[in-house]
C-alpha cells in the first residue's frame, strides 16, 4: 500500500526527516512512535501533501504510484486520509455542507454518481452512531467550538464516511480522556479491513492498547531507529525513549 524510500524532508531549510524507510502492506496497521520533535507530524503532513515541507531526497510510493507528484486533494481522492492532530476550525461552513462536498469530490473522481440528500443523510447517520456523535453536529460549523475530543471524533467520522484506503492518524489520542479514546479506537477498529492500511502516529503507547498494531516503528531524530512487533511499544513505555536515544548515540560512536 505504502512504501517510503530514503525520505529526506526539510522545513524552512532545517532537515527534519533524514532518510525514512518504511513499508506498510495492505490490510495492516502500523504504529510510528517517537519523542517530541522526532519528525512524526512532519511525516504525516508530507504524506498528506503539505506544500511548505520540502522533500529533498527519496520517494513515497502509494499503491505503486509516486505520491509526491499529487496535489493534496488528488491524494485524498485516491484514498489517502490524514486525521489531523489539530483539526482546523472553519466557521461559516457547516459539517453537512463540508462532508457532502468532500464525498462528492471523491465519488466524482471515482466515476460514481453523487449521493442524493437522503442517501447521504442515511450514511452520515450510520457513521454518527458508530462514533456516538449527535446529529446536531451536522448543522454546526466544521470544528468550530468543538471540544478537543469532539474534534478528534469528527476526524474519525470523516474517515468513516470517506472510506479511504490509507489512513494516517496523527496523534489522534492526544487530548482525549479514556472514554473518548475508547470511542475513537472502536471507530478506527471498525474500519480495519484487508483492503485498508492504517498508520497510527503517537507519542504514547496507550492508544495501542486499543488499536493493536501489526508492527511498531520508532522514530528518533528523523530516522526510524527500530521496528518490531507490538511488544516493542510496551518496551518503549517501560524504558522510555531515552533508552533508544542513548543506544543511537552509542552506535554513532
Amino acid at each position, binding site marked *: 500500500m505504502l512504501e517510503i524510500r530514503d525520505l529526506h524532508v526539510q522545513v524552512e531549510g532545517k532537515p527534519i526527516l533524514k532518510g525514512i524507510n518504511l513499508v506498510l502492506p495492505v490490510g495492516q496497521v502500523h504504529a510510528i512512535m517517537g519523542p517530541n520533535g522526532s519528525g512524526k507530524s512532519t511525516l504525516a503532513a508530507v504524506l*498528506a*501533501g*503539505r*506544500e511548505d515541507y520540502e522533500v529533498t531526497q527519496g520517494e513515497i510510493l502509494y499503491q505503486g504510484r509516486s505520491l509526491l507528484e499529487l*496535489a*493534496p*486533494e488528488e*491524494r*485524498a*481522492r485516491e484514498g489517502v*486520509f*490524514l486525521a*489531523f492532530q489539530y*483539526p*482546523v476550525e*472553519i*466557521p*461559516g*461552513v457547516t459539517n*453537512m*455542507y*463540508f462532508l*457532502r*462536498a*468532500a*464525498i*462528492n*469530490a*471523491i465519488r466524482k*473522481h471515482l466515476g460514481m454518481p453523487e449521493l*442524493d*440528500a*437522503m442517501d*447521504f*443523510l442515511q450514511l452520515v447517520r450510520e457513521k454518527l452512531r458508530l462514533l456516538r456523535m*449527535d*446529529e*446536531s453536529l*451536522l*448543522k454546526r*460549523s466544521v470544528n468550530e467550538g468543538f471540544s478537543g475530543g469532539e474534534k478528534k471524533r469528527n476526524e474519525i467520522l*470523516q474517515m468513516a464516511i*470517506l472510506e479511504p484506503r490509507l489512513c494516517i492518524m496523527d496523534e489522534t489520542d492526544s487530548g482525549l480522556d479514556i472514554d473518548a479514546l475508547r470511542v475513537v479506537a472502536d471507530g478506527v477498529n471498525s474500519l480495519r479491513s484487508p483492503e485498508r492500511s492504517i498508520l497510527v502516529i503517537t507519542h504514547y503507547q496507550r492508544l495501542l492498547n486499543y488499536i493493536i498494531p501489526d508492527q511498531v516503528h520508532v522514530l528518533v531524530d528523523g530516522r526510524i531507529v527500530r521496528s518490531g512487533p507490538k511488544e516493542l511499544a510496551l518496551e518503549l513505555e517501560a524504558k522510555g525513549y531515552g533508552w533508544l536515544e542513548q543506544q543511537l548515540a552509542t552506535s554513532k560512536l
Partner: protein
Amino acid sequence: MLETHRLGGNITEQWSAFLKSQPTYEPRFVAAARQAAEAAFSKLGYPLRRNEDWKYTNVTAVAQTAWQPAPPARPMRQFDWEAIRAIIANGRVVDLHMPPTLAAKLCIMNWHDACREHADFLESHWNRTARWSQHAFAALNTMLFEDAVIVHVLPNQDLDLPVHIEICQQANEQRKPQAVFPRILVVLGQGSRASLVESYSGGSERCFTCGVVELMLERGAHLSYYKVQQEQENSIHIVQAYARLAQQAELQAYIVSLGGGLVRNECDLRLEGEHGSCTLHGLYLARGKQHIDNHTEIEHLAPACTSYELYKGILSERGHGVFHGKIYVHPGAQKTDAKQTNQALLLSDDAEVDSKPQLEIYADDVRCTHGATVGQLDEQQLFYLQTRGIGKEQARSLLIYAFAEAIVSQIEIEPVRLQLEDLLLAEEGLPLERELRRLPLP
C-alpha cells in the same frame, strides 16, 4: 462650469419645475424644510475628496452627470415571503400591503397619505434625524424626494411580521441618466419591537439612487434592520441612514452590499439615552471596478451605552472597499463601551481596501477599541479542505463564502438569509445544496 456642477447645477436645472411648485398637499413645514435643504445644498455643494469624510470616495461622476427625473415604473420583483410590504419604484411608492389585522399595531403609509392624515406626526418626527444641513446628499434628497414610506410601530407592540421595503430602479427607455430620491421614516414607539428589511434592486450604469432613511427608536424599542443592496453593477447608490436611540433602545443592523458600481452606505447613529445599544454588521463584496464605501458615525451622547461594529469585506479583481468608522463619545457619556472591527479579504493584487477608524473621546471612563485586519485566505483551512478531496479552487470558494456567511448566518428572517446564502454560493460557483437544508435535522 465645473463649479456650477459642484453646486448641483446638474440637478437643479432638471428639477426646476418641481422646486418651484411642490405638491400642494404638503404641509407648510415640509416646504420650509425643502427650502432650507436647498439653501444648505447650495452652500455645501457636492463633497470633494479634501473633505475627510469623502477622502476615499470620488463623487465627480455624480456632480458631472445631467441627471433627470425617472419616469414612473412598476415593481420589478415578486416576493413569495410574507411581510408588511412597501415597494418604491423609481422614487414613488407603487405598492403598500399590510394584513388588516395589524392595523392596531402599526401605521404604514405613503407620503401623500402621511401629509394628509398624519401631519402632526410628521412634523414631530420627520426630518428630525437626518443631518441635511451638513450632508449634501441628505440635503439633495430633502429637496427633491417625491414620495416616502412612513412607518409607525405603536408603543409596546411586537410585530411578528417583518416590514419589507423594496426600493427598485428601472432605467428609462432613452437610457438617459436618471436619479431617484427614496425616503423612509420608521418610528418605533416606546417598548415596541420590529424588523425592517430594506432591499435595493435594479438600476443601470445611468441610474443614481440618493436615499435617506430615518430611524427613530423610542425608549426601550428594539429594531432589527437589514439593508440588502443588490443593484446592477454600474449604478450609483448613496443612501444615508440616520438613527436616534432613546434610553434602553436597541438597534441591530445588517448592511449587506453586493451590487452597485459606486456605493456609499452611511450609518449615522445617535445614542441619546442611557443603556442604549447598537450593533452594526456589515458585509460588502466588491469586484470588477466596484467601489463600496461604508461610512459609520456613532455618537455616544448618554452614559452606559454600547456600540459594536463588525464589517467584513471581500475584494477581488479591481474592487475597492472603504470603511470609515467614527465613534464620538461626548462629555458625560461615561461607561461607554464601543468596539469597532473591519476585516477585509483581499483576493487580488489590484483590489484595495481603505480602513479608517476615527475615535474622538471626551469622557474618561470608557472602553473604546478598534481593529482592522486585511488578509488572504487561511492556508491551514485551505489545506484541511484539500485533504478531504475538495479541489483548491472549490476550497477557496468555500472559504470566501464562509467569511461572508459569518455575517449572513445571523440574519433572522429566513427568506432573506436563504436568498443571500444562495446568492453567495452562486457567486462563488458552489453547489447550492438546497435539498440539504430541507433534511429533517435537529
